[in-house]
């Protein structure tokens, strides 16, 4: 498996000096290396073989996803969300990640991947709880098999490895798909997670969305590698490079990696080349660090436009379908807006719940203190309200 086979196997013993005895390369690096250019399907001959059902389903998801992003950003302007990191432009990655998984599989999203959780079926309001600010995680991760959206970059990757490993130990054919950004690949946790996954042959798929920036920092300041997918060989797993704006290509590569993982073939690193069309978050001003014409160049490679072209060419984009898709997305957005306009129910005593399985005496004391303060506040208020 690795350069040194332990224990005691030997190379060309006797013919000294030769390669060190017991040394033998075991893995052929060639199949682990990514292609020189990103894999794509749209615009190639392979596109003709794509299942129409898949294409239209991807399309519905992409349109809905973009509308979701727009709505969430709008909610920040209305003060209904504290912040929103949009994935507009990256919808093909988000949607493909969700669709590549079976129900029993687990998704490990990063903070930008709300859309992937929604595409996987999570209630949008629950998905946005973190960013609305009424609690940290708005859903039960075990119920949905979606880990909490991870804010500390790359820290979710070892979790995915551990979970996938545990599932395999338990005999469950569960796969974990973990998402991270190009910037996140620089973190030590990225390295440690990929290494553990390869050594354990854990059923994990690592999806790097290389959108060219980590906030303001361009990829050239993040890595000098030929591609991020070239990191894979250093762990002994295959690295795949994909056009992240080509939805069927993304879907195919991820589905294939998930299948391989499920069948015991071990982890895969997938690098999706994509672009964040909007600012880092609503609070960011992207004009400080990138030129408008770069953004325009990428708009020309929009994932929805690419897919529409294919659908259209194959007669799969009738007007009614487009309208129905847009209407459904509008309906989702309207419902989201309405539901987010309702103030969430808040219970300050939640602060002291779930810190430990059993509340400590210290926390009970502190809860008592807050309860008294709130009572005093309420009393004050009713006194004030009673005044003319």
């Amino acid at each position, binding site marked *: 498996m690795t350069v040194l086979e332990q224990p005691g196997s030997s190379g060309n013993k006797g013919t000294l000096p030769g390669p060190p005895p017991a040394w033998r390369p075991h893995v052929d690096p060639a199949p682990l290396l990514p292609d020189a250019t990103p894999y794509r399907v749209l615009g190639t001959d392979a596109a003709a073989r794509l299942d129409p059902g898949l294409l239209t389903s991807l399309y519905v998801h992409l349109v809905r996803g973009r509308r979701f992003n727009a709505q969430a950003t709008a909610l920040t302007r209305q003060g209904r969300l*504290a912040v929103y990191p949009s994935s507009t432009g990256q919808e093909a990655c988000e949607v493909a990640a969700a669709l590549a998984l079976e129900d029993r599989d687990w998704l490990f999203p990063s903070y930008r991947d709300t859309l992937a959780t929604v595409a996987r079926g999570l209630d949008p309001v629950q998905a946005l709880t*973190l960013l609305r*600010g009424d609690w*940290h995680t708005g859903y039960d991760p075990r119920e949905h098999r979606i880990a909490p959206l991870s*804010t*500390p970059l790359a820290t979710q990757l070892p979790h995915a490895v551990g979970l996938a490993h545990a599932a395999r130990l338990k005999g469950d054919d569960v796969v974990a798909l973990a998402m991270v950004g190009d*910037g996140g690949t*620089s973190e*030590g946790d990225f390295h440690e997670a990929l290494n553990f996954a390869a050594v354990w042959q854990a059923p994990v798929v690592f999806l790097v969305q290389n959108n060219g920036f980590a906030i303001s920092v361009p990829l050239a300041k993040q890595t000098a590698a030929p591609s991020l997918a070239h990191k894979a060989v250093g762990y002994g797993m295959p690295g795949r490079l994909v056009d992240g704006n080509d939805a069927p290509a993304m879907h195919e590569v991820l589905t294939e990696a998930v299948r391989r993982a499920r069948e015991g073939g071990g982890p895969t690193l997938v690098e999706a080349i994509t672009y964040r069309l909007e600012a880092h978050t609503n609070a960011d001003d992207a004009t400080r660090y990138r030129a408008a014409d770069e953004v325009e160049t990428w708009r020309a490679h929009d994932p929805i436009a690419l897919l529409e072209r294919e659908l259209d060419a194959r007669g799969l984009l009738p007007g009614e379908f487009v309208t129905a898709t847009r209407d459904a997305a509008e309906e989702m957005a309207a419902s989201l807006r309405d539901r987010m306009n309702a103030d969430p129910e808040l219970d300050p005593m939640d602060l002291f719940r779930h*810190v430990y399985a059993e509340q400590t005496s210290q926390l009970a004391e502190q809860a008592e203190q807050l309860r008294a303060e709130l009572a005093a506040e309420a009393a004050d208020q009713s006194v004030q309200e009673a005044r003319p």
Partner: protein
Amino acid sequence: MTTTTAPTTARKPAAMAQALNRALRDAMAADPSVHVMGEDVGTLGGVFRVTDGLAKEFGDDRCTDTPLAEAGILGAAVGMAMYGLRPVVEMQFDAFAYPAFEQLASHVAKMRNRTRGALPMPLTIRIPYGGGIGGVEHHSDSSEAYYLATPGLQVVTPATVGDAYGLLRAAIASDDPVVFLEPKRLYWSRADWSPDDPEPVAPIGRAAIRRPGTDATLITYGPSLPVCLEAAEEARAEGWDLEVIDLRSLTPFDDETVTASVRRTGRAVVVHESNGFGGPGGEIAARVTERCFHHLEAPVLRVAGFDIPYPPPMLERHHLPGVDRILDTVARLQWESDRTEGRGD
């Protein structure tokens, strides 16, 4: 906000973030060995704009956008310091300094000592800390207890615009590593200020009495200073004249100023946003008590964040020490003859 230093030259309103920016600029201009580095500190000028304009003025080599890896940033800064540079590292948020914890605890804090002084670490690590800005999880930790418990580090935190400038200049000039904690909710607090104020470099290790008083001492720092000053104003209505001490440096600790104050007032409350249990308040209360025991009319009490993970934005106001909670605690300093024990009794 009261400061102990009287202004002489032209002053105008400035935000703390601007004063910090000016401190970096002046330090870089004065000393070519000062290098600023971190995530987004270059082109963007930092997510809080504290490094705004520095890359343009001094070039990418003096103000560098690094790869996104905090241990790597701090570790590289250690190597740069070994070669005689004076790195100023920015950690983007409090919780994002944790990946660098090993470099901090095992190298930054110990290098001078390990090498009998041969390799000093004139590093400044700027960390925006604390809550109150509606940040999502992992963006509002008050992590000062970790740094306090690490000998070899200086731990400094400004609470005023003037100190933001003065202490940052002092931190960069220090031949020891300084964890420089910037109260992020005070970034946009403004005060009349000019870098030409006398004594612009505030000394590390010296607390400031921000409000003199006679009845009890509020001991605080960083984001809780304005809250304590407000509490002290409101306390006048209750007939209490509170002294407010801004520690400014947690390490080294200014025992002299604090001890003298509490011996005078006979009562003290420590106020900070960090979790109470295991937080800085324990150390402060313990050492004040060791030194002032027979002057104390009541135990030194603490007002701190609850012993919980930092709450989500919509609940954070309940967690943060506010004026009422401070006044309630002051009220428990056994002003009358009712000599019952403190909380938990």
